[in-house]
């Protein structure tokens, strides 16, 4: 294992420390317990937005803290949900009197830790709502399982709910918008090569030179199945088809599309995937109204990509375009 790190156990702390120095104009890093808030938190009268989860998905979540997006991010150990003792102070720190929305990716660990934290924060007088992101179509959604994972859709939820909070929507309103995004966003991912978790020291799965993993998440888990390596257009079709089916995308639908790199894939390849997505959606009469192509929710240095599609309405597009100023997403500000 070769990584630009010092001690595997210090990776998250040192990385967040560096992040805090680089973006001192935008964020404050609270070291013990670890969480990150926007510089001007709490914003009085504004709904506070908190998200978090295991580290290793950078820029998610700390890179999305700032005006028009998150008020706080809570990083756990690499690929490990944070603990309630981090989430509680992050929640109270960003409560400007209008309550706090937790944006939680659907993993047992995230759900349980945020659940506990919400209960305790409520006991401290903060009104907390939660929205559960579960956009990964690679995973079956069923009452008898842990349900679908939360992956790329999280970025879109954070952006759009963040804009709603910034324009002054109340807690119910922000929660409703966030839920509407959750209901209309789906994702699917592929890995060409695994990542190596620093404390584990070995790749998170084994893959031969001729195989890829389809239906991967963002934690270096193996995917739904291995298939033989294909070209970019073929892989793109495999990512798109289940999303189109699950969302029943049809001619006339408007979308926000994200082609996301898993950390170790060059931008040039992501644009090749985006090109094919654009061709295929055009063939279906579906328009791409906004797009993101780049590394937004990663799995360390994993090679691969994910595709996220949101069926967007006027309000979502308007909120998308509103100013945002974070380390990793910025426009209009």
């Amino acid at each position, binding site marked *: 294992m070769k990584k630009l790190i010092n001690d595997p156990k210090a990776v998250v702390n040192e990385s967040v420390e560096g992040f805090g120095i680089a973006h001192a104009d935008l964020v404050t890093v609270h070291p013990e*317990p670890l969480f990150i808030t926007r510089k001007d938190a709490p914003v009085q009268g504004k709904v506070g937005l908190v998200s978090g989860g*295991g580290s290793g998905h950078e820029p998610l979540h700390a890179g999305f803290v700032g005006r028009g997006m998150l008020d706080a991010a809570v990083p*756990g*150990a*690499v*690929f*490990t*949900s*944070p*603990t*309630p*003792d981090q989430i509680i102070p992050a929640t109270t720190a960003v409560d400007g009197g209008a309550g706090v929305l937790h944006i939680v990716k659907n*993993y*047992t*660990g995230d759900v*349980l*830790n945020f*659940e*506990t934290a919400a209960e305790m924060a409520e006991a401290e007088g903060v009104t907390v709502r939660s929205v559960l992101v579960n956009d990964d179509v*690679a*995973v*079956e959604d069923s009452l*008898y*399982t*842990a349900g679908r*994972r939360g992956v790329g859709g999280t970025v879109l939820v954070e952006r759009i709910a963040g804009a709603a909070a910034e324009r002054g929507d109340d807690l119910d309103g922000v929660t409703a918008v966030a839920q509407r995004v959750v209901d209309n966003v789906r994702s699917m991912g592929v890995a060409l090569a695994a990542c190596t*978790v620093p*404390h*584990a020291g*070995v790749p*998170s*799965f084994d893959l031969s030179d001729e195989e890829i993993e389809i239906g991967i*998440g963002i*934690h*270096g*888990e*193996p995917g*739904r*199945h291995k298939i033989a390596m294909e070209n970019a257009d073929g892989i793109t079709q495999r990512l798109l088809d289940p999303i189109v089916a699950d969302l029943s995308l049809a001619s006339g639908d408007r979308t926000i599309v994200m082609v996301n790199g898993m950390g170790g894939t060059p931008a040039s390849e992501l644009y090749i995937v985006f090109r094919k997505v654009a061709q295929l959606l055009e063939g279906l009469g579906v328009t791409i109204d906004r797009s993101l192509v780049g590394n937004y929710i990663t799995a360390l240095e994993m090679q691969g990509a994910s595709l996220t599609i949101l069926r967007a309405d006027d309000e979502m597009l308007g909120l998308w375009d509103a100013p945002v100023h974070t380390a990793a997403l910025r426009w209009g500000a």
Partner: protein
Amino acid sequence: MTKPLDPRWAVLWIHEAARVVAENRTLLIELDRAIGDADHGENMDRGFSAVVAKLDAGEVPGTPAAVLKQVAMTLMSTVGGAAGPLYGTAFLRAATSLGDAEEIDAAAAAAMIRAARDGIVARGKAEVGDKTMVDAWTPAADAARTAAEGGAGASDVLAEAAAAAHAGAIATEPLIARKGRASYLGERSAGHRDPGAVSTALILQVAAETAGGQTA
């Protein structure tokens, strides 16, 4: 050579649990790598190291329940992931079930394991057969009750629980996961033991060993 299950035993148990978790850190990571995200060993090791540091820093609490409550709070705030809240709840419920008794008798030992198991099910909503730590805790709780009802001593109750947890962990191997991270793998999750079930068996095993218990 059974011991009274007093606060000093509880502290000893947890020290041994920390040791066995550290020793099996790589095994637990490997198991989690196969069907999860390769962190269970790291999470448990981080948590139990913190627990031991915390226990060593203070006086031995007055009751076993007080020890286990401290363990619960520390695990909750240091393990993270799914295992943190689940083990945290398990130790918290175990503590609550013990009340302020100064020693744990056979019935209390069985009740403690049952309470831990029920806490995990309440938080995680998994059923037996879902390929989670519940598949170790449930047979452990059942075996503990049977042993207690059959007149075994407290330490032997723990020994029966540990043996059942161990068998339960092994039995997760062919299962297809329906809860937790392994469920995302669908059928690919079969053929591997559940890491949380294995860590459960390890922790119960040192409970029995430190108590000096033996299986029937």
